């Protein structure tokens, strides 16, 4: 029996990419809500709301899963993770970050593996089988 996730957050600066991902996510029908952030700072602003000091009690819009792009203007994926590391301490709920990149550079994979904040690293593009696999890996109780 499939159980839907509360919310999935997509962070990518490329509009067509976001459009495509949103379509895939909705086709997979695995979440009640899909959010799109077109920059890392937009995503941080959104997540800050759930931080302890802001004491927002309603977690219905809190993302269970985050897809993060690396190469973004202004603040890239790595810089986002630095800030996110601090922010995460204030969260009352667990969340899974999966990096999603076109990068074929093995250094990026190694770097991501070294970061406890990053649950997984996948190569673009996102597809329904990849999404199902991710859900099975990180939410085994629900799938």
């Amino acid at each position, binding site marked *: 029996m499939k159980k839907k996730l509360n919310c999935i957050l997509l962070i990518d*600066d*490329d*509009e*067509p990419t976001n*459009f*495509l991902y949103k379509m895939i996510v909705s086709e997979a029908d695995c979440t009640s809500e899909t959010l799109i952030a*077109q*920059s890392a700072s937009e995503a941080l602003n959104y997540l800050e709301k759930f931080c302890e000091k802001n004491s927002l009690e309603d977690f219905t819009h809190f993302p269970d899963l985050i897809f993060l792009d690396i*190469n973004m*203007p*202004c603040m890239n994926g790595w810089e986002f993770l630095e800030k996110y590391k601090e922010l995460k301490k204030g969260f009352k709920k667990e969340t899974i970050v999966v990096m999603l990149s076109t990068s074929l550079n093995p250094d990026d994979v190694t770097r991501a593996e070294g970061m406890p904040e990053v649950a997984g690293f996948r190569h673009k593009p996102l597809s329904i089988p990849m999404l199902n696999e991710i859900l099975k890996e990180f939410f085994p109780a629900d799938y």
Partner: protein
Amino acid sequence: MKRVSLFRWIKNVSIAKKLYFTVGIMAILIAIELGVLIFSVNTLSSVRAYVTGEGLWSKAQKEAVYQLMKYGRTHDEADYEKFREFMKVSEGDHKTLVELGKENPDLEAAKQGFIEGRNHPDDVEGMINLFRRFHFVSYISKAIIAWSKADSLVRKFDGISKKLHTEINKTNPSQDSVNHILAEIDPINTNLTFFEDEFSYTLGEGSRWLEYVILRLLFGVALTVECTGLLLAITVSRGIQRGLKEILLSAQAVAKRDFSRKAKVFSKDEIGILANNFNMMSDELERSIHEIENVQQRFKNLLESAPDAIVILNDSGVIQIVNAQTENMFGYSRSEILGKEIDLLITCITKKKNGNGSFHHVLDIMQNNEPEELEWMGIRKDEKEFPVEISFRPIRMEEGLLISAAIRNITEKKLLEKQIMEININLEKKVTLRTNELERKNKELEQFAYVASHDLQEPLRTTTGFAELIRQKYLGKIDADADKYISYIIQSSDRMKTLIKDLLDYSRIGRETQAKKINCNELLCEVLADLDGLIKESHAEINATELPTILGYPTEIKQLFQNLISNAIKFRQKDIAPRIKIAAEKNEQHWLFSFSDNGIGIEEKYLSRIFVIFQRLHTRTEYEGSGIGLANCKKIAELHNGRIWAESEPGKGSTFYCSIHEFEHA
């Protein structure tokens, strides 16, 4: 306690004061002695005067008795007058005796009495004083009693004489009566003689006693004077001697370098101060000697611990001092080297041909006549030679000039130098090899990027073509989603096209090999003409100062201008017409171009990142671009041996600086 404090006072007072004190005490004692002497002489003189007075008194009394007896026989009035005359002596003395016996005697009357008693006027005062001062002394009081008794007896003659005078002057004087009266005289006279003798005897005894007392007194005073003088002299001199002896002993100890013996301080006088000062001096001396010894020890340690062989020569090149390292280095013992000439140890190989001794070169070095580095060899006892490095230093001493030579064995250094040189040569060869290889690889890479981006265009063009075909044929005919997909495909293909073109441009930079003269004013005009559409659309205002003519790569410089100007227009603030100022300034070796705008500005933390390829600060929806323009500019600046950087204030505008070195290989 008082004695103790007096001694303490004498001990601590200055030597001059001690002397003054001693002499003062002596003077006072001598003055006392003199006083006693004068008093004694006066007293004795007075005693003598009394004895004389007694003689006069007795003589007058006897004469009076004689005259009275004569009168009794002769009845001659002249004899009676003579009797009265002689009686005046005892009457005068009687007056004095009566006066001095009173509580408050009239001294003038007493004096007068004595003078009437035929005493010498000069003696009178002393006689009265003796009576008054010493009447309680047994001898004097006994004499006074004798005098008083005699006096009262003498007074009886007055009555007898009056009776006699009356009898004789009767009309019928009876000789019997006369004889009867005269018979009264004799027993009185006999008694008087007794008292007169007693008076004289008592006074004589008194004077002898007095003499005895005075002699003892004088002796006593003299003894006191001598003892006091001696005591003071001993005290003072002993104090001085003791202090001086202390200092002397300490001085002897210091002479034997025993600084622990301190001079004891007994007093606070000059000797005490001297002792204190001496102790301070000895402390200071000890400290100084200790310091000097320390310095010597340090020098010795320094000398012995030096890694070099250190040889100290006198001004004629004879070895004076060496350290242990010298013995090790040359294989001689110290005694074998000392006193020998320096030629024993070293030889100068640079000027060996001159034939002069090594010391000749040393002197030349000392006088700065040896500008070139000399090469020296050390000679061991076993005659083996080895290369050395020597640094000579003059040491100017009181006894003349000494020269220190620090000798270092550089056999290993020479060996290492040789090895390093070989390694360097090898390294250079390797570096050249690698550089060539790298250059080749770099060329290959550039070629690859160029070819790849060029070849990538081919399938892209096909994709774009078909996408365009689909758009024309099927837009609005399938559904809204399909329209969106088509537009995304075309959008992404266009982006790809731009990226490939920019990448191509980027890889092409520097392919031009010929630098040319570029009139930057003309070049700017061309760029502005190319950007005309954009400028008009944004109402941009572009001002430039007079720009120079430089030597460079025209295509690249044009691209640089174009990128910077189009960026300035692109990143303008909303609703504010862009104003761009272009200027150039000649610095020492380069032209510094500046492009200032009134655009959105850049946060400081991004100022360096903007020049990295594909780095963008904004999403494509905000500002178009591939993130390659400023990377191009950087590559172009570097191609012209310059650099590019930006200064900015977010919200106010940015200034991009680009330095372009002029090429000289036209």
